[in-house]
């Protein structure tokens, strides 16, 4: 009973927002696509009114902004109605991007945690590494990604690992920053307690610092996985790569196929939402086991 009403409370506002967005989108599609209809009509020498324009803007072959149902149909066509091994399947491209994302995410998270552990335990690292971590993220990744890909290619790293390294480059940052804060979360008394037991640094880490940092870790992971996906897509842009959401978007823009761009965009958004959701589930499971989810 409580659960059901809780669900309603959560779903209702989300549904309202979604409907509002779709409505705005339709209006925008009509507005943006109308000019092409008018130009066509002018060229043919006929007068057309809104009554003709509105339905026509819903089904253009090459709209400026496709209508939501066009994108939905395109996504359906390229997922459910294609074999997933086909190059025209969105699932095929999605997996290419997703695998690079996940590999990069794992690499980035590992790097971020290692850096945070070093920073928290070593004063020299604290002073020297943190500024570099911050400046690493001021680099415009879109400009640097092709260079990184080329450099990596020349040392024999290409494809999946190269793309993943861009993901890792972006995703280590929130993890490092969050974990430094998390590993420093224990207060003086909690640390003193360990000292009264003459605990080793190793024990202090595993029994105090690590569990204290978990809420921070999960918050960072959600950010990290989302930008890992962005990193993988950026990594697919310069290579002329064989597949992935990035390559698909690039193709779409070469050939003026706006629908392809939009469906790739939505595919990416859905992947991000699923990954963030999965981390949320893991977070709830861990925090419940440790009594921190109430």
């Amino acid at each position, binding site marked *: 009973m409580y659960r059901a009403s809780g669900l309603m409370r959560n779903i209702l506002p989300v549904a309202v927002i979604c409907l509002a967005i779709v409505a705005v989108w339709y209006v925008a599609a009509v507005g943006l696509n109308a000019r092409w209809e008018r130009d066509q009509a002018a060229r043919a020498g006929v007068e057309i009114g809104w009554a003709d324009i509105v339905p026509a803007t819903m089904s253009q072959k090459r709209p400026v902004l496709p209508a939501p149902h066009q994108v939905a149909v395109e996504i359906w066509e390229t997922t459910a109605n294609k074999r997933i091994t086909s190059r025209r399947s969105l699932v095929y491209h999605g997996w290419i991007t997703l695998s690079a994302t996940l590999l990069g995410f794992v690499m980035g998270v590992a790097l971020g945690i290692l850096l945070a552990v070093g920073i928290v335990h070593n004063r020299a690292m604290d002073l020297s590494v943190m500024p570099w971590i911050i400046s690493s993220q001021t680099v415009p990744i879109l400009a640097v990604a092709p260079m990184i890909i080329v450099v990596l290619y020349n040392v024999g790293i290409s494809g999946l690992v190269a793309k993943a390294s861009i993901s890792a480059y972006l995703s280590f940052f929130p993890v490092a920053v969050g974990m430094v804060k998390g590993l420093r979360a224990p207060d003086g*008394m*909690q640390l*003193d*307690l*360990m*000292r*009264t*037991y*003459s*605990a080793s640094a190793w*024990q202090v880490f595993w*029994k*105090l610092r690590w*569990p*204290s940092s*978990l809420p921070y870790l999960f918050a960072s992971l959600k950010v990290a996985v989302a930008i890992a996906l962005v990193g993988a897509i950026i990594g697919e842009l310069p290579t002329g790569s064989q597949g992935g959401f990035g390559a698909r978007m690039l193709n779409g823009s070469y050939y003026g196929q706006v629908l392809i761009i939009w469906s790739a965009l939505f595919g990416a958004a859905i992947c991000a939402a699923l990954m963030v959701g999965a981390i949320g589930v893991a977070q709830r499971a861990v925090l419940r086991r*440790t*009594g*921190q989810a*109430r």
Partner: protein
Amino acid sequence: MTGAGAVVASSLDLVFQTRDGPVHALSDVDLEVAPGEFVSFIGPSGCGKTTLLRVIADLEQPTGGTITVNGMTPGQARLNRAYGYVFQAAGLYPWRTIEKNVRLPLEVMGYPAQERIERVRRALDLVDLGDFGRMFPWQLSGGMQQRASIARALAFDADLLLMDEPFGALDEIVRDHLNEQLLALHARTGKTVCFVTHSIPEAVYLSTRIVVMSPRPGRIIDVIESPLPAERPLGIRESATFLELATRVREGLRSGHAGRDE
């Protein structure tokens, strides 16, 4: 220094260097606590009670004088796990159940698994929390949390118990109850207890000896042996001896303030 006392300090000095200049937290402290004693430290806040306890526990380094704990330096005593420390706040780790909080020192000190279970059960029974082991700290009242933190300090074999105003934040009824339990525990285990408080009745009720301290600089101004018997029902607090003792402590505290603007 002989190794006879549980805690032996002489001419102990501690000056904190702060941004606003040096703070003389302990000045010329002489103290000898015999094994099995229950010694209370009482004084207004800022008189160095916590600091003294932290020096005994090797959490703070004195800037002068000498101190031994069980005949060793505080550092060696800490490495030998000679004492259990109960902080002013319970300080339970929120991600551990009560049981696992009490088990924490046993894990750190490497007690075998079977013995851990045994000891956790015994320590929780000792503070009447036998049925609450599976709960998380936030599910317990403040008084129960503080009892759990005492159980945590009792779980391993240290014959010295350092307690820093453990009941300071609790209401009087809970406090009376915990005082009784603590007294029974002291009688049963024979541990040496150093107990910081700013409550006169609490100090008089619990202690075999009361150390009265005064601030700026933090120092000992009186040491009072308690003539009360070991057996102390709560009613003893209305007896003449008790009230006399309380008066003496109060006067000691007041004389420490003589000539000061407080």
